[in-house]
């Protein structure tokens, strides 16, 4: 599955990525790894694509490490979807709070 960033999420990509969910009034700053996942998700990449790219970027050396990266990526994307900061493309949008 791929993702889209809701219109209500305002974000800036300077030295770091800062998010603001304007429907909940919440701010969040992403660390380097989270920022990398966010950028790729925002481009419409799937969790598998993102994990593959990060595995290459961070030098995952074997299947176990690549599997660990994929698990972490999926967990983080799930967290963002739960928080309403990402939407699953093609799914119904979350109701306004």
């Amino acid at each position, binding site marked *: 599955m791929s993702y889209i960033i809701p*219109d209500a999420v*305002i974000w800036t990509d300077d030295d*770091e990525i800062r998010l*603001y969910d304007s429907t909940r*009034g*919440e701010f969040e700053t992403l660390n380097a790894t989270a920022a990398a996942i966010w950028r790729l998700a925002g481009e419409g990449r799937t969790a598998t694509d993102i994990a593959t790219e990060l595995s290459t970027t961070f030098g995952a050396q074997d299947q176990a490490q690549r599997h660990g990266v994929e698990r972490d990526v999926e967990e983080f994307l799930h967290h963002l979807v739960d928080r309403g900061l990402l939407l699953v493309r093609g799914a119904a949008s979350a109701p306004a709070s």
Partner: protein
Amino acid sequence: MRRRADPVDLLRRALEMCGEARLAVTGDSMLPTLLPGGTVRVVRVPYEQVREGDVVAVTMDGAVLVHRVAHRQAGRLVTRGDNMPLLDPATDAQAFLGVVPGLPPAPPSVPPPAVVGPVQVHLWLIGGGGIDVPPNWVVRWVSHRGAGVDAAALLAVATGIRAGTSIGISPYGVTAIDDLGPPIGPTHLVVGGAFGGSLPGGNQLLPPALVHRHVRPGLPGEAVGVRDTVAALARVLAPMEAAL
């Protein structure tokens, strides 16, 4: 190097793009109207449409303040938290973010406690001297240290004004001097000091809660010298004392 975006930038962008945004409420400056822990909806409206009594979001010192408009003054907004004894510094259109609709009017102010005793005005002058004072007023001079007072001076004032109604006079007082009612019982006027928090070096501004009421000698935020302030107080209070 690009400046790191701060929360105010993000909020401003959200208002520009979406027309409204939510903000978390922190602090107790707007009690009982707004409770900390909740959120408020800020709506973008033209600055010219803001009225006295509206609750607005403005930027101040890099943060967002959600307070109620007390005055519109020369194109600027003077705000105050419903739970705050003093006015905020005025802000202009650049600082304005939006209004918070749907809130009740400001709660009524709580009158100072009733005081029993003969009317006597006590003037506490911080850092002042050589000033004409009505002969029936009791004057006490308090030494100052820069913009504030030291702990001993603060204790002396706090102890001395305990018996009676106390009124602090500063540029950010909520009430104008002309709206002062007649003195009731012992009345202590604290003039020449600035109200606020601690200062570097151990000195401190006068705590806002030191006095029962806050009165301003001029327009909101306007600095008026001690001499002119005392003259204004005498002009307003002397006729009332004579009538009692």
